[in-house]
């Protein structure tokens, strides 16, 4: 259900020029490479081609002082990849803040008895003090691991998520982990995700992936009877239950999801991953590394898919089914047919209320491209999109999704985003908590697209209905009509002005 439209590239080019003119020269020169207007959607859709149409420089250091929206490597590892593994205790190793600010904020849902056999919505920290900085924290870490064992004996393992000071003071968390793992006979994973490493969350994802490879795989005998339709879902963090709304579909088409990474995951699901037949990867950015590793080492193929919105869900289900052959393909067609009435009803209800509304996005790993078609399924138009921490391969993949003239911004600054939104005046902005309130003050509806604004799921058919409802309630709420005080209204607008 591809929507045909073109964006106002000339306006967008002008907006880029305007924001750049406000920077000091040195910064303007650097920022220029990150801003662009997408060209020629037709060429962009040719499969397999390396595209440069919405090419911008990416995965480069942020400029100091400009209000980047990015986070850090710790956020990428503890916050994204490792944090959701529910039956392990994740230590935020260093001062108290990092763990505190990220505590329970990502909404990666899980089922379990928190504090007893699962630990997701808890904040474990070594709460570094000055003496730990001066004398090192390795001894403290050993003691922490003992105390975790004492108080939370049902944990299946521990990860050590390093914060900035750890790498700077030369602690050897690897040695401690090795030693204590032997002692307590459990998996302990040191993750070198100090926040100053790399340029964004992205390196944290990579380091976290490498830690799975180096500290989990092939460390234990995994007793597991594999089957012909075993898949891992990789890069679904179960925000608001996304992974569950996806799993139900994959099971319905006849597949066996033997591991979900890492939303609602257990350590066992990670350990057995190399036994699966196919890795299905949703968030390519944060977990492609381990998929590539599993392909090289264990010969497991991996496949990207997109479960946002019916067009992509349908296409993805068919692509996945094709990999497994006729039996699965047949079931897939039944599943697509089963959900068709729901999709039709959702679109019939919401499309008339949303048709033609414009959207600007600025999010993280996969969403700046993956959600585009979901909006288009509702008749909405994407006028601008950008990533916090994408690499070049993400922008290549984005070209398949965006239309000619779309405004593209990489590692956007607070200033740029505000000016772009002011200039474009979209009907909806989808971004994060830091962006939400400035945008709403301007009178523009907003949805948080990291946390689903405390809603969700948005994946799968069940999620699409929630997504459509949420977009509708954001845009069509009466509050947006109340911003102007009637006595401030210009006479031509207001019926309140009595005739003389």
């Amino acid at each position, binding site marked *: 259900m591809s929507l045909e439209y073109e964006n106002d590239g000339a306006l967008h080019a002008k907006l880029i020029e305007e924001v750049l003119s406000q920077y000091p020269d040195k910064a303007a020169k650097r920022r220029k490479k990150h801003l662009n207007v997408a060209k020629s959607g037709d060429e962009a859709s040719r499969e397999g081609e390396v595209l440069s149409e919405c090419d911008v420089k990416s995965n480069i*250091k942020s400029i*100091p*002082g*400009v*209000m*980047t*929206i990015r*986070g850090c490597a*710790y956020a990428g590892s503890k916050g994204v990849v490792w944090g959701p593994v529910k039956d392990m205790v994740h230590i935020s190793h260093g001062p*108290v*803040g*990092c763990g505190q*600010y990220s*505590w329970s904020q990502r909404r990666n849902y899980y089922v379990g008895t*928190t504090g*007893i*056999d699962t630990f997701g919505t*808890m904040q*474990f*920290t070594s709460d*570094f003090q*000055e003496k730990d900085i001066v004398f090192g924290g390795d001894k403290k*870490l050993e003691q*922490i691991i003992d*105390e*975790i064992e*004492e*108080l939370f*004996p*049902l944990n299946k393992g521990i990860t050590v998520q390093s914060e*900035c*000071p750890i*790498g*700077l*003071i030369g602690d050897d968390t690897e040695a401690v982990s090795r030693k204590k793992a032997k002692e307590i006979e459990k998996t302990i994973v040191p993750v070198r995700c100090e*926040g*100053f490493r*790399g340029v964004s969350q992205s390196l944290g994802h990579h380091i976290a992936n490498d830690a799975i490879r180096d500290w989990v795989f092939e460390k234990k005998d995994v007793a597991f009877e594999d089957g012909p339709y075993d898949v891992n879902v990789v890069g679904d963090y179960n925000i*608001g239950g996304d992974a569950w*709304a996806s799993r139900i579909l994959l099971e319905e088409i006849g597949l066996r*999801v033997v*591991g979900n990474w890492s939303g*609602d995951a*257990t350590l066992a*699901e990670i350990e057995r991953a190399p036994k699966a037949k196919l890795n299905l990867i949703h968030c390519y950015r944060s977990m492609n590394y381990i998929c590539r590793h599993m392909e090289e080492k264990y010969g497991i193929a991996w496949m990207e898919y997109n479960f946002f919105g019916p067009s992509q869900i349908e296409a993805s289900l068919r692509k996945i089914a094709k990999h497994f052959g006729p039996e699965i393909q047949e079931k897939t067609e039944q599943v697509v047919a089963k959900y068709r009435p*729901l999709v039709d009803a959702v679109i019939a*209800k*919401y499309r008339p209320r949303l048709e033609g509304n414009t959207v600007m996005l600025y999010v993280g790993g996969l969403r700046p491209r993956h959600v585009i078609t979901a909006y288009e399924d509702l008749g909405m138009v994407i006028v601008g999109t950008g990533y916090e921490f994408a690499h070049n391969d993400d922008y290549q993949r984005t070209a398949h999704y965006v239309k000619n003239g779309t405004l593209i911004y990489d590692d956007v600054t*607070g200033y740029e985003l*505000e000016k772009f939104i002011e200039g474009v005046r979209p009907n909806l902005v989808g971004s994060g*908590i*830091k962006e*939400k309130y*400035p945008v*709403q003050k*301007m009178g523009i509806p907003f949805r948080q697209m990291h946390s689903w604004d405390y809603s969700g799921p948005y994946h799968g058919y*069940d999620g699409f*209905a*929630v997504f459509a409802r949420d977009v509708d309630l954001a845009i069509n709420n009466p509050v947006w009509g109340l911003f102007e*005080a009637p006595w401030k209204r210009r006479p031509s607008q207001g019926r309140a002005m009595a005739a003389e």
Partner: protein
Amino acid sequence: MPQSAEKVLDHAPLFREPEYRKMLAEKKLNFECPHQDQVVADQGEFTKTWQYREKNFAREALVINPAKACQPLGAVFAAAGFERTMPFVHGSQGCVAYYRSHLSRHFKEPASAVSSSMTEDAAVFGGLKNMIDGLANTYQLYDPKMIAVSTTCMAEVIGDDLHSFIENAKEEGSVPRDFDVPFAHTPAFVGSHVDGYDGAVKGILEHFWKGQERTEALGTINIIPGFDGFCVGNNRELRRLLDLMGVSYTFIQDASDQFDTPSDGEYRMYDGGTKIQDVRNALNAEATLSLQRYNTRKTLEFCEEAGQVTASFHYPLGVQATDEFLLEVSAISGKEIPEAIRLERGRLVDAMADSQSWLHGKKYAIYGDPDFVYAMARFIMETGGEPTHCLATNGTQAWEGEMKELLASSPFGKEAQVWAGKDLWAMRSLLFTEPVDLLIGNSYGKYLERDTGTPLIRLTFPIFDRHHHHRFALMGYQGGLRVLTSILDKIFDKLDRDTGETGVTDYSYDLTR
């Protein structure tokens, strides 16, 4: 199929549907390698025991669910309380994303701050270049009147020197020579957000006051509110009281407008805050009063050195704490406390008298920042309640001493215990082994409410899962009324729930209470 377009089910009801329950049960059984249910249940029960509590309290290194944040958060909050001031945090950039998110989630408002975005090379060579470029970019893009610099732990560990860096940046022309760039070193591995607040405010006062001649203006007062998630309601309420008295006062640090901008189509990056000129003039005030002692220890010392009279309070709310605050203001300013305020006081006392039968003897657990816990314990005792557990993760020994003195001053504090430096996992054990009727804290307390069944009243920062509470004052007599009502609502709601079963308990489901 549970989902439909007519009645869209989001996560809360959706996953309770049979299809999903079955799916999740099978996932657990077949793929999660779970512990046996009995083992989990036994461990769950064990955590409720005294034996577990002893293990829990024997912890020396591990901190679980602390009720404190790190210094730079306090510094960023402090900076937000000055006119057109951009908080600039020198160090790793992820930290700033966290502070901004944390403040926005509580206030439901924009929270601006910039980072000098130091990475590995800066860790090796120092962050001077980041400071030079960063100040230039912030100055040009965001048009601030002042840039208030603080640090993340990364910059502290490598030992970057803010004073010389800022001087260097000025030499390089990043900002004009006379542009105000106060600073504070705010290591995250020392103290907590309340100390970061202290350092940042002191840094700003030092910047403007050092080397200046002081001409004492008798009767004028500076007020420093401290780190306060309820600043929006509180600062405005205090201003109202001070205006009623006709006092000449200056708030030093006031984020009440910054974190409460209107929706009228315009995004204000900066709003309100203490005017730069007023900060300069504040040197001449006769006295500086701190509303939260543990937020301003260093700042008040500095004010004393500058020649001012100082006094500090513990988050003045309720009857006697408000009395003391007003008396002090009256003594310094020479202004009488007007009849209108006496009537307000009487109305709070009247409300407390009306409701005393529901409050007398109720047991409470209270946690939060040191001054807040002190204030709540004091007010609870005024209502005839017993503050059984008083916990501050960032509470010092001095605080513990002050608390014990307070609790000893009333028969209602006799059974009370003070827990300095303990966390909310310790509180969990306390609530299981020595239960109370009500828990007072912030949103993190919801996990304690879930696990122990103790009703939670959210009265302090951060409150993420309830909206707009922070817009209403807790301080003063009016604020006391608000606290009182919040407590009573919780008590009555619970009583109604507990007596609401038709034909079983509803004889006690009284219409009038």
